[in-house]
């Protein structure tokens, strides 16, 4: 990938570039999925339940939306290192480590934002669902389903954050060529090699991909809305 510019690489179907793009999407999409699985129900739970310390939890969640990626990367690195508590799994410097790290990074975003979305919707639905005798688990499920458009936006926020960050995946992934190199770390590398034009080109490719994912989500919403409202 040395002297070509990004445009030529795309047109010629350069295998290295496509492998990097594929890995970036795989890592971030999986991370977003796991963060959603953890964050959405938790956000819904906090939205619907009153318990002591609830206010503190909400402040904590909101604050953690601003977790510095490099700090998250460092902490996970220490955990996954062979000399760390989870060392025996040998996860450091693998794509799995990157997925874990990104998931940890964006779970607070998804939990905090979904809590707000669901709490607002609950205000609207509370009496109705109570009168229908819907049980607590059913309420969470119903709110998640009915808030789906707003929640997709929440997921896109998480996705965008994960796709754009470089500190976490650099530390836990190691930017290994052909193995843990993703768009952001590739851009960082080309920058450090002085290939600034290529780095900018790759940056535009990355932005296009993020836009494409957002466009797909928009299209999905449009189609779904016309069918079910």
């Amino acid at each position, binding site marked *: 990938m*040395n002297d070509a510019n990004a445009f030529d690489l795309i047109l010629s179907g350069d295998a290295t570039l496509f492998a990097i793009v594929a*890995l970036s999407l*795989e*890592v971030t999409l*999986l991370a977003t*999925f*796991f963060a959603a*699985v953890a964050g959405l129900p938790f956000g819904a739970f906090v939205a619907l339940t009153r318990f002591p310390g609830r206010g503190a939890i909400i402040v904590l969640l909101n604050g953690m939306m601003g977790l510095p990626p490099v700090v998250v990367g460092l902490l996970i690195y220490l955990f996954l*290192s*062979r*000399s*760390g508590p989870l*060392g025996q799994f*040998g996860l*450091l*410097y*693998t*794509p*799995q480590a990157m*997925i874990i790290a990104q998931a940890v990074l964006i779970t607070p975003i998804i939990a905090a934002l979904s809590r707000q979305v669901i709490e607002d919707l609950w205000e609207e639905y509370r009496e109705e669902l109570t009168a229908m005798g819907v049980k607590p688990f*059913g309420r969470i*499920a*119903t709110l*998640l*389903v009915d808030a*789906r458009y707003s929640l997709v936006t929440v997921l896109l926020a998480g996705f965008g954050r994960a796709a754009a960050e470089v500190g976490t995946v650099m530390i836990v992934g*190691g*930017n*290994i*060529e052909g*193995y*843990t190199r993703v768009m952001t770390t590739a851009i960082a*590398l080309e*920058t*450090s*090699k*002085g*290939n*600034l034009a290529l780095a900018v080109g790759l940056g535009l490719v990355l932005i296009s991909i993020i836009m494409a994912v957002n466009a797909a989500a928009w299209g999905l919403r449009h189609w*779904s809305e016309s069918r*079910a409202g």
Partner: protein
Amino acid sequence: MSEQRLSMFPRLLTRALIALFLFAGTSARAEDKSIVVASTTSTQDSGLFGTILPLFEEKTGIKVRVIAQGTGQALDTGRRCDADVVFVHGKSQEEKFVGDGFGVKRLPVMYNDFVLVGPKSDPAGVKGAKDILAAFSSIDEKGAPFVSRGDKSGTHAAELALWKAADLNPAAAKASWYREIGQGMGAALNMASATNAYTLSDRGTWISFKNKGDLDIVVEGDNRLANQYGVILVNPEKCPSVKKDLGQAFIDWLISADGQNAIRSYKIEGQQLFFPNA
């Protein structure tokens, strides 16, 4: 969309995705034939590994996964048992590593040299000098901007050794013209290029660097600028997870005629960057 479909969703999809998660990135993970080599940014950024590693892989089928960090960080990675082999350039740091029992044995592999690069305007007036210590003294005296890696790398260690030999210590004095950035060679060169400053670089990275701007080599050839690379197997007794057979195979290849030839043949713009001396 309904709650029923929502509850069926998790079971199938989660199973599929967990499988995908476990196999993300490549085919099988930990059990394949691969080793992790912690090395320096100079070997990566110069493109050396990109050329010689495929030859090793073709011959042995062992995949080499390179983490490019500075010498200091690479040795730390070895101490934490997160690498199988370390391949760095910082003799005293390497010897301490082996002495402390983290490495098995240090073997020299190749050398190159450092060069002092600086702006064409040459405010310190050092261009063409043959004595690196005199050049450093000029820079200190004139207060010309100088970028230091500041990251415990081999290059940084060499730079500090030169300041010490010239009886100077801009780092401790926190001189305003001395900028420690704590980053790799590429970042240092980028900054030197952007701010028209001097910096010490290994020749390999310099030649392959694409953003030279107004910079050029101002001092080279002094004996004190020699830069020796060594390779060390991480000690399996301290780190049971080390793949010692595969790691040893890599080391053996590097110092073998094949490996040494591969290093010798790597050229950029007709210039050989690294000189094998196993």
